[in-house]
């Protein structure tokens, strides 16, 4: 496997301090998982010598909480994902759902291409559940799956009339926003236009590959990475910044590509990548963020997705949203929601995911907030599923406060 020079994958940086074990949410939830230090750096060293047979690997959700706390900069989660990929080259899959969940874009394309496809798919999901079809496919019976939108974001975007501005960004929407929650994408365009930014999209972008990496399909992710890298680099060359509104897409494109692959241009475009709220927070630092807000007297609770936390950008949403007059917003700050992209949908992981998220669910319920706020689509779904409180993207809060 090609290794990027600047961010070399090096298990020997581990000092065996055990800090990661204290933080891993899956380790806390089940003894079926050996924990980050063992499956990551320790066994990677061993795997260099002998082929290892470690089914426990499958339990790592790639949430990256271990990476967050490791003082030595060991890319623990990525070591786990590489090992998982290798493992499944010679072992049968545990869950039949792996393939479908890893290639969610394929499913999204299929469904939204059909007339009334989303209606049937969403119906199929609930009918499927009641007949146990989902169970047979390896999907947890009581997991709430994402529903499909009747019109994709890309199709909606084409109908939006924008005012041109010199400040331009290209928006990598990702599958979840494109097929499941296009309104987050249209909210982005509205909020950005209000801040005098012109938004472009690129129909040739493909899924970032995050679910493929987590599912142990790194070779498929490499194909996608190669396509996206060339496109992203060309946008940056034309003077555009890149924004994402899904933290997993953002992390994948700017960090995991560099850890896993070795394509030309990755570091160059990464220098121009921003989370959608981080980009606005930067405008604010430069005194250019529009604060022409209407009152919003809603009580919100904000959950920071794990994949945002490791981006070293702090909590941009907690910098901007409290500026809305009348708003009551607090950070949940109780760690991982458990879903980790598609992990929590799998039949053999669902219970672990719900256990991991239980602290967050209780925190949300006890806060008596009317709405949850979170940048990640599947986290929002998990928050709703676990607490019964609806959750929205921070861009939606901003769009409403602008009265748009």
């Amino acid at each position, binding site marked *: 496997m090609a290794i990027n020079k600047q*961010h070399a994958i090096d298990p020997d940086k581990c*000092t065996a*301090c*055990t*800090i990661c*074990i*204290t*933080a891993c949410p899956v380790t*806390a939830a089940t*003894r*079926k*998982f*050996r*924990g980050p230090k*063992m499956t990551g750096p320790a066994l990677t060293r061993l795997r260099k010598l002998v082929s290892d047979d470690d*089914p*426990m690997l499958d339990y790592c959700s790639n949430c990256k909480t271990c*990476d*967050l*706390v*490791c*003082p*030595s*900069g060991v890319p623990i989660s990525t070591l786990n994902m590489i090992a998982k990929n290798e493992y499944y080259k010679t072992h049968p899959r545990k869950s039949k759902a792996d393939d479908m969940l890893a290639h969610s874009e394929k499913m999204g394309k299929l469904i939204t291409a059909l007339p009334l496809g989303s209606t049937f798919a969403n119906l199929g999901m609930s009918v499927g559940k009641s007949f146990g079809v989902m169970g047979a496919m390896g999907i947890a019976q009581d997991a709430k799956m994402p529903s499909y939108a009747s019109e994709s974001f890309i199709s909606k975007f084409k109908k939006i009339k924008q005012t041109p501005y010199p400040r331009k960004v290209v928006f990598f929407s990702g599958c979840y926003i494109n097929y499941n929650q296009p309104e987050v994408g249209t909210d982005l365009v509205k909020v950005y236009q209000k801040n005098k930014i012109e938004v472009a999209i690129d129909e040739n972008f493909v899924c970032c590959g995050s679910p493929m990496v987590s599912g142990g399909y790194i070779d498929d992710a490499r194909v996608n990475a190669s396509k996206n890298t060339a496109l992203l680099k060309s946008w940056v060359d034309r003077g555009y910044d890149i924004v994402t509104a899904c933290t997993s897409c953002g992390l994948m494109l*700017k*960090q995991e590509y*560099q850890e896993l692959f070795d394509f030309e241009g990755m570091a160059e475009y*990464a*220098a*121009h*990548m921003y989370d959608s709220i981080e980009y606005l927070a930067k405008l604010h*630092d430069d005194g250019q963020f529009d604060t022409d807000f209407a009152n919003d007297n809603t009580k919100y609770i904000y959950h920071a997705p794990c994949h945002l*936390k*490791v*981006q*070293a*950008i*702090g*909590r941009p949403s907690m*910098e901007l949203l409290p500026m809305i007059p009348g708003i009551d917003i607090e*950070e949940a*700050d109780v760690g991982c929601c458990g879903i980790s992209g598609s992990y929590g949908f799998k039949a053999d992981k669902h219970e672990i995911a719900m256990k991991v998220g239980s602290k967050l669910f209780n925190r949300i319920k006890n806060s008596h907030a009317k709405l949850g706020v979170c940048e990640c689509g599947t986290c929002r779904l998990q928050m709703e599923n676990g607490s019964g409180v609806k959750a929205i993207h921070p861009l939606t809060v901003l769009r409403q406060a602008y009265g748009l």
Partner: protein
Amino acid sequence: MKKSDILIIGNGISGLFAACIAADMGKKVQILSYGAGTLTIGGGIIDVLGYDDQGKFIADPLKGMDGISANHPYAKTGAQTAKKALEAFLKITEEEGYPYLGSPDKNLWLPTAVGNFKPTCLVPRTMDTEALFKADNILVVGFDTMKDFYADMATKNLRERLSKNKNVEEFIVKLNFEYGRDLRDISAMDVARWLETDEGHRSFVDQVKGHVKANTAIVLPPVLGLEPNYKVLDSLKKELSCALIEVSSLPPAVTGTRLNKMLHSCAKKRGVQIIEKARVVGSEIIDGKCQAVITEGFDRQRKFYAEQFILATGGVYGGGIIAKIGAMSEPIFNIDIEVPKVQTDWSYKQLFADKKQIFAQYGVSVDENLTPVAADGSKPASNVKVVGRSLAGYDFCYEKSGNGVALITAYKAAAAFCGEA
């Protein structure tokens, strides 16, 4: 945030405590940190000063600071500041619902995992060691399948070390967890999680109750819950009508994790902004004043501006100080650290020699205001202060002073930046 009043690098105990103190005094504080601090694997107890240079026990840590060698951090802070700092810490633990016991002018003897005793100063209520000395009956409780705690060894040693009229017995709780090749070993953290559940609580009480005599103190590994509160301790104490004392133990450490959570919660409540995974790689210094520090990640470098800076990056272990052959330096402000040229001089021959290790005392030299001083005597940045494990002049392991130095220097730096002498 474009610019903070005080920017702290590192979120170990010293960085977090400095942040709480400065925020309390009304400052806008930001923490940049790459990885969690040593606290999460340490004992979560506050050693202040247990032994002097000759290895003699110190009964009153504050008194012990008088006449300490001139380059020791305590020589820069003085006993007065030390007392204020530790009292401020005690107050925070009180406010956070996880009050610590002890007093800055008195050392306690705490049992270790193998049944020896070590001096320490402030401890959580789960380590109320005075109850151990008051009890007539000591019951050492182990867990049958848990690693890292050998109840038989602890029992034997406690029997030898405690007065002969104390009755020391051992009891092993059966965990009845699931076992199998596909399940990992059981750690103290697993047992702590179990004791937080009703099922674990019931099972523990049912098994132990019959072995508790009048005036008993239970000695057990650190397993009394993972959250910074005393729910598990208080409910067990009530049902068993006896004291429970956790021993200081090996990483991954339950008690350190609790204190880490408490300090984070305290800092967040005070509006401290923490940016995790932010690796600081350098600084921008103009005319002897630091303007900004620079972080670097997978995307790009970022500058973080502030009026004042506190360096709390720990020692060699977490990358706060870089050791190369025959050279040592602090990488963010580029401070050279004076070391002997021949590396074999760095440590005494026997690793566990009854002497302070020279190597362990290396760190950034500072003046009496904790402002860094380079090997050539120059001061690279006047608005920077250095705290905690990054400092030169002490061997925390030998003298038992780790978290004490961290808290006391952090307090001094924060208070000085807030205009308090």
